[in-house]
């Protein structure tokens, strides 16, 4: 069992004065890594994953990156309304998703479209969600990036911070009560550890020993609020202590470390050990979302430092040391992905809007009289002039 507490308490009364972990080096001090600077795997730490798996993780991370970049462009062009991506955080998302077993369930925050695609959602369906068209599995009812993937054992994104954590615990608890061999994971940011949901989810998980892996993406920022203003602790992992929940910190830009750590927690949970809190040390390279301009609150220099720790570069270097990736392969992957994205965007843009009827469906299992009445009023009434 690889899981242990990386936490250390600061009894002096809070972390004030402790320098903020604003560089990759400071952020990762004392944390075990697998992929070393030269790209080779540390033999003592290497989980020895099949090469095919590592390569497919690389493919997925590159695709995630390219999709992300394209969506930002589409938003700038006014073709989609919003995007919230995972630039720089791909390893935390892809490697953790890959470490879950097929029967396990993922409860997303909002940056995890990469995990949803890994789980099998067709790219077209994701783009349909981004455009909110009639083909969107969520029927265009929610903002972009508020996707849903039940067929892929993947939850439903909502905006209120933290709610998915408690639900992931309840879901895992139900499975445990039914003796169903499954584990749930919940993604959330370090800012979300301040929410009441984190407290409740962790406490219930601890008390009822639910098979849940709590995945804290510590990307340094909650919109404009730096991680050191969220908590007076030195780490977020040490919060596990308050709930009797084992916790561990992990280099979140190291695909192999993330996989190994999450996998251990999944196996621990599946074996009846209960929950684990994992703090994945990473960095949000982009703004919070397309609505945000981070230049108003953070120094470009800080970002520069982290660009060098880009998880894609690290994995690529690793694959190169293994002789498992050629430049030509990489270029082909990017070209294929671009083409695929282009086709999806075209189809998504061409698809019709959701119908007026669809607005009144699914509020309840059966439509009550008042919604039937409102639906009629809406459909028979005049349509709005174009807005926006």
């Amino acid at each position, binding site marked *: 069992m690889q899981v242990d507490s990386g936490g250390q308490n600061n009894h002096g009364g809070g972390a004030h004065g402790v320098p903020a972990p604003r560089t990759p080096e400071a952020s990762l001090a004392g944390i075990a890594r697998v992929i070393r600077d030269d790209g080779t795997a540390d033999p003592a730490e290497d989980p020895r994953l099949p090469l095919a798996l590592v390569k497919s993780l690389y493919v997925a991370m590159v695709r995630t990156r390219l999709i992300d970049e394209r969506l930002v462009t589409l938003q700038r062009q006014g073709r989609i309304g919003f995007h919230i991506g995972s630039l720089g955080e791909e390893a935390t998302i892809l490697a953790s998703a890959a470490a879950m077993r097929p029967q396990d369930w993922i409860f997303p925050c909002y940056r995890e479209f990469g995990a949803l695609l890994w789980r099998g959602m067709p790219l077209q369906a994701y783009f349909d969600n981004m455009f909110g068209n009639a083909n*969107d*599995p*969520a*029927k265009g*009812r*929610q903002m972009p990036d*508020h996707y*849903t*993937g*039940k*067929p892929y054992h993947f*939850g*439903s994104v*909502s905006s*209120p911070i933290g*709610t998915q*954590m*408690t*639900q*992931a*615990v*309840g*879901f*895992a*608890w*139900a*499975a445990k*009560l*039914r003796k169903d061999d499954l584990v749930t994971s919940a993604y959330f940011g370090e800012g979300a550890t301040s929410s*009441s*949901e984190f*407290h*409740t*989810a962790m*406490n*219930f998980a601890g*008390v009822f020993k639910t098979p849940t892996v709590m995945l804290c993406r510590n990307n340094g920022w909650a919109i404009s609020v730096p991680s050191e203003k969220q908590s007076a602790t030195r780490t977020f992992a040490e919060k596990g202590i308050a709930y009797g929940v084992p916790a561990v910190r992990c280099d979140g830009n190291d695909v192999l470390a993330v996989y190994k750590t999450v996998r251990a927690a999944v196996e621990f949970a599946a074996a009846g050990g209960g929950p684990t809190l994992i703090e994945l040390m990473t960095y949000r390279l982009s703004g919070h979302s397309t609505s945000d301009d981070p230049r108003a609150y953070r120094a470009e220099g800080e970002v520069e430092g982290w660009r060098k720790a880009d998880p894609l570069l690290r994995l690529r270097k690793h694959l190169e040391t293994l002789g498992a990736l050629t430049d030509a392969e990489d270029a082909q992957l990017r070209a294929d992905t671009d083409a695929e994205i282009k086709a999806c965007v075209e189809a998504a843009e061409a698809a019709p809007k959701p119908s007026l009827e669809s607005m009144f*469906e*699914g*509020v*309840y*299992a059966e439509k*009550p*009289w*008042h919604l039937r009445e409102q639906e009629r009023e809406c459909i028979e009434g005049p349509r709005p002039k174009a807005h926006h």
Partner: protein
Amino acid sequence: MTEMNMVQAINDALRLEMRRDDRVLVLGEDVGKVGGVFRVTQGLYDEFGEDRVIDTPLAEGGIIGAAIGMALYGLRPVPEIQFSDFIFPAFDQIVSEAAKYRYRSGGEYTCPMVIRTPVGGGIRGGHYHSQSPEALFIHTPGLKVVCPSNPYDAKGLLLSAIRDEDPVLFFEPKRVYRAAKGEVPEGDYTVPLSEAKVVREGKHVTVVAWGAMLYEVLASAEEVAASHGIETEVIDLRTLWPIDLDTIVESVKKTGRIVVVHEAPKTCGFGAEILTLIGEKAFLHLEAPPVRVTGWDTPFPYTLETDYLPLQHRITPALIETAKF
């Protein structure tokens, strides 16, 4: 048939459904060994064990958040909130999550669960053990809201609610938990949701009420029948939302007059909605201004609670005035 009070009838419904459907479980504060502070879950822990009758830590948000997770999985949780005054720490999970799950996920996920919670005044509970927050949930699309007034309905409605595919707020009028008694069939039966019941026929004025206030309305109806010959038609709403408007409209078409009685503060209470619906559906049938008899727009007071509540002494004059208008 056995005579039961409300507590026994609700307990009976829970036991029955837990025997019939092993997906059903109960969770909340003190619901286990002690059987709830009102003893509604008494004996269930002994019969079904700690995996299906679960004492939770003191966190309403956790109770509902976890119950949502359970419902997503496929169980049928019946969480209890000890007093409806304490539902607010769970408000976000109820209105942002449970209410919207089906809609926001395009129907992939559903969230069938019944949140049971005692409601209303009359037990000298002051500010925080007396409130009636139903309007907040009725205002939230995606939720159903039920409030039975008697043991028969309580059991039948709870069985319907647990079998329903949507999240239901099940408000239990604690003032009549033990006082309201009646014959209850022993086995399985349901009272359908969204069907109001005319519990007293009359031609002069329609009164809509639910829960504990129904008994005050009935007492006033007797009083005005005897004193003024006014025949009151009394409708027990039973399910507050989605409302059975037809039954009310039909009655108002007959009487031309409507009074709504509820314990919650007047302003933006459910009474406003009911009267506005009548204005929309039966305006031309109205022969008198629609009237509300409700709790005042103050926090729920302790010593003066009988002066706060819309009891018989306030309902009777409203009936007379409305009927005579």
